[in-house]
């Protein structure tokens, strides 16, 4: 009889497993716990893992620890306008103007691309790598008037897009009183703007950049431009500071 008992059990199991997608041999039981664990200094670094990292770290450290300048105060980022946003957008424009033959009207970055603030004190190559870890090229875009207006509306609406050499007022989620190089925006002319290839290709939802009439590579990575700029400041005996001029008005 034992035999038939097992046959019976097997039949039940087969029937059950054939019965449907939710069939469970193992039923989830009553316990479920969660405990996200902070990885902090109470944990001792695994020696084997440390040994794997060590040779890489040595190389990185020697390259990264070089001090290239000094920031008088921390350069932070914030919506619309901020010390960090102004600093990078401004230097992008300044450095690009030195490289390009043609006039460049504006410089532009997005807050999302500026990964960390720059601390007060000595600034190292490593800080700049953390600020700008991406392998982004700088490009100069030529935009028609309406597309330029779109850019300012985007900046006004999202607050993520610092723009050098321009001012505007945010009103009802749009940009008004737009001035480029102190002159009111002229919808009938074109403007040039230096930005990253990432943003130029529509990154960070900057779709209007895809309507650029012309795209030219500056021929320098954005990070290298930042490094170059800071080294030049230091060589001229100047600290790293950001322009604090009021560029965006009407932000609540």
């Amino acid at each position, binding site marked *: 009889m034992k035999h038939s008992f097992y046959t019976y059990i097997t039949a039940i199991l087969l029937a*059950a497993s054939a019965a449907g997608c939710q069939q469970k041999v193992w039923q989830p*039981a009553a*316990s479920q*716990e969660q*405990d996200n664990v902070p990885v902090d200094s109470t944990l001792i670094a695994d020696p084997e*893992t440390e040994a794997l990292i060590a040779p890489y770290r040595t190389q990185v450290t020697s*390259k*990264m620890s070089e001090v290239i300048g000094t920031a008088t105060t921390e350069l932070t980022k914030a919506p619309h306008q901020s010390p960090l946003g102004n600093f990078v957008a401004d230097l992008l424009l300044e450095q690009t103007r030195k490289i390009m033959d043609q006039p460049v009207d504006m410089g532009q970055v997005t807050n999302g691309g500026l990964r960390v603030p720059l601390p007060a004190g000595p600034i190292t190559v490593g800080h700049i790598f953390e600020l700008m*870890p991406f392998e982004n090229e700088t490009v100069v875009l030529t935009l028609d008037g309406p597309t330029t207006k779109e850019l300012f509306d985007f900046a006004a609406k999202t607050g993520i897009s610092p723009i050098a050499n321009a001012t505007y007022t945010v009103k009802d989620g749009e940009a008004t009183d737009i001035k480029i190089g102190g002159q009111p925006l002229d919808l009938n002319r074109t403007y040039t703007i230096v930005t990253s290839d990432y943003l130029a290709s*529509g990154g960070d939802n900057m779709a209007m950049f895809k309507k650029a009439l012309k795209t030219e590579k500056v021929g320098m990575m954005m990070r290298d431009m930042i490094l170059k700029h800071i080294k030049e400041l230091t060589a001229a005996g100047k600290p790293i500071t950001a322009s604090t001029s009021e560029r965006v008005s009407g932000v609540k």
Partner: protein
Amino acid sequence: MRRRDFLRYSAVGAAGLTLVGFPFSSEAASKSIKLTILHTNDQHSRIDPFPNDGRKYAGMGGMARRASLIEKIRRQEENVLLFDAGDIWQGTPYFNFFNGELEYKLMSDMKYDAATLGNHDFDLGLEGLEKQLPVAGFDFVSANYDFSKTILKDKFKPYKVFEKEGLRIGVFGLGIQLEGLVGKKQFGETIYLDPVAKAREMVAELRENQKCHMVICLSHLGYSYQTDKIDDRKLAQQVSGIDLIIGGHTHTFMDEPEVLRHESGHETLINQVGYAGINLGRLDFEFNKKTKEKTSIKTAALPVDNPVLTS
């Protein structure tokens, strides 16, 4: 850290369980299988802890520390699965100088079981990924990127099934829309497919054909957006049958997983642990070995101390 039963917070979570008629007893408890899920997301090449310079999260993280934590948990727990939800790359000079090699090497050393691709994992282009894939001793799962027209054709699986003491766990991956987020130069001819449709396909495959008892989604879609853009919360509400979404992209620090209930009654947990390896996500599940009558109600999320069970 105090361990906690997070599902105490979910009164809704208990409601569907009465339909199952779950027989919880000491006998059942003794015949349980424990499954420990560990996870990270958005590691962003953070090999070393954040420097102790007063910044936010100063002194936190560090892959060698994480390795010892994982090792300790592996010594304590029988069934451990370790996952990552994407954006392994980009964020420190280690990535710039070594092109992601060290990140993959260390994750392999920690015995990651699977990862999915984040947008920044495309930063070195498809060529960059192709170059480092041999270093990764773990699989990438990706169900909604079609690489068939690229050099990465056949390099990724849509899902992977793990078996622990007979318990079958299906894990699939979902990635975010690349257009606008990743340069066209980087993602090339990779085609982004609808995550909702793909997730439904994966659930059907894993539950019906692969006979999985648990379905996990590694998602780099992001936790929650105000817009119509697909996110983990919308995914849980639009697709029935995912037990756990391990999320990423939005760098969201969740104190406890969120439980979302699909109209079918199926409950999905969502967990995400910030970024940079500041936290290691940990979820412990217990499964009962008893054979059950089939039911369309999913019962993955059950608290021990829930009044519904004891009444």
